[in-house]
């Protein structure tokens, strides 16, 4: 896509394309021997988050992924990739299991946001996300994350506390959906495109803000035009990220994970006289 300048809004349209590949497409292309695991052991099994163990490059890994549906039936099942607290608690259960068995954790982020509903509030959506941020920060095994499409708000960050973060070239990562941003700050949801273009939500923005570490190339026009090549590119980046983090001493790894987030923020500071 070198010959074409895409606006952030163009990229958002690409990741919302109906043929945009989801984790279900990539899974068999990147991993082998996948065993899906279900449930949070407290309440239920949230299909908006898929998790399990499998092999990557021959070695055991734990995969945790937000799942977008590819059609209306799948979307009903996965709640349009908007997890409930049960999904985040399943993710945490699998991450703790990975820690126990010294497997790296690979997270795939692809959600418009955590689900906003009565059950989600009653079961503590806020606590579930907070707990993941807290636990992933000190999880004693390498964690790498990839934003496949939409990285929406706290619902995305709950799988985003990691040693290294990669984003697909057209993927976006934002504090709130552009529509929500426009409606909150300008009281006008129709200014979505304008919001999108000033929010700094692209992979390049995320790199410059110190949030993302790698950008994974997509074929011209977007990942849906060549899923196999995209999967291959994801594999290469995963390989690189796992290699650099698996060699570190675990305490060093945790310090650098903490500092990756500790550094983020812009402010001025004066020493009062």
């Amino acid at each position, binding site marked *: 896509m070198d010959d074409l300048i895409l606006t952030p809004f163009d990229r958002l349209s690409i990741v919302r394309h109906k043929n945009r590949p989801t984790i279900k497409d990539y899974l068999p292309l990147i991993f082998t021997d996948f065993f899906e695991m279900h449930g949070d052991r407290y309440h239920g099994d949230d299909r908006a988050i898929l998790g399990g163990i499998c092999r990557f490059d021959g070695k055991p890994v734990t995969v945790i992924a937000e799942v977008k549906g590819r059609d209306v039936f799948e979307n009903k099942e996965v709640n349009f990739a908007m997890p409930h607290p049960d999904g985040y608690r399943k993710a945490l259960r699998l991450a703790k299991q990975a820690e126990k068995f010294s497997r790296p954790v690979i997270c795939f982020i692809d959600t418009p946001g955590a689900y906003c509903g009565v059950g989600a509030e009653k079961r503590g959506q806020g606590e579930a996300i907070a707990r993941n941020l807290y636990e992933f*920060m000190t999880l004693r095994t390498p964690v790498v994350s990839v934003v496949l499409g939409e990285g929406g708000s706290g619902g995305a960050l709950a799988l985003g506390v990691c040693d290294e973060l990669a984003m697909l070239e057209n993927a976006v990562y934002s504090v709130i959906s552009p529509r929500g941003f426009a409606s909150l700050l300008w009281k006008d949801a129709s200014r979505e495109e304008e919001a999108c273009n000033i929010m*700094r939500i692209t992979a390049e923005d*995320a790199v410059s803000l110190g949030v993302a570490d790698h950008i994974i190339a997509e074929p011209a026009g977007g990942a849906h035009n060549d899923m196999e090549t995209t999967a291959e590119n994801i594999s290469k980046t995963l390989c690189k990220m796992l290699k650099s983090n698996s060699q570190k001493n675990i305490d060093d790894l945790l310090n650098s*994970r903490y500092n990756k987030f500790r550094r983020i923020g812009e402010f001025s500071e004066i020493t009062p006289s």
Partner: protein
Amino acid sequence: MQLEDLLKQVTDRFNFDDTPKQPPFKCPRCSESTDTKTLSDNMWVCPKCGYHSRISAFDRIKMTADEGSFTETDKGLSSLNPIEFPGYEEKISEMQEKTGLTEAVITGICTIHNEKCVIGVMDSHFMMASMGSVVGEKITRAFELAQREKLPLVLFTASGGARMQEGLVSLMQMAKTSGAAARLSQSGGLYITVLTDPTTGGVTASFASLGDVIIAEPKALIGFAGRRVIEGTIKQRLPEDFQSAEFMLENGFVDMIVDRKNMRRTISHLIRLHRPNGERTVPEAPAK
């Protein structure tokens, strides 16, 4: 206004004991009106229904810390404009002038009934106490200070969520503060949160929900998603007490609901109970 002047104004507000002149308070819970004097004598709690109204960080510190014990930390931090959002700097200066605060949280060290602790108080009058870089940094430093000095940390939370004007940078403050909470916890430090009206969004989904002990003030709004967002999703009106402190207690996300008048005593008792022998820092003065 220069930041130095602002800091002086902040200091003056701490030292100047006045009753703010405001129009009568109309309670958002029971709609009853109360004059400011009655309300302030009642610690800004609605005498009709017990709603614990929103108070400034200055008032909170005054009613929580032992007199003269509070020393502010990290007060020189001020917001920049990480995503160059139009009008953000102006908005910040306007809020600084209006509230006398540099940002939406004040942190420091104080004693509460002689128990020394690190304290942080968020103030919803400053951009709904949304969490941007400065709030995230000051809260993180409060965790780190508590860990370094081996002191308990008490945070009074109030927030509308992430500071939208700082984009992705504000979202990351959730990870940063939660990571700092995890580190304090691993070092054995005590962390008490007091959820006050309103505690929502990204603050609920980060450090506010991570206390060893979670206290809430009566009738405070506490939740993740905005009420109107949920009503829009489910196309139904929600019950009045949805996302209240009482709702959170019932659903298992709050340890106790504590009246403002009992807050100092509760916090100091809890601090003592977390010492190996439950001892006091300073022997109690004889009862008057």
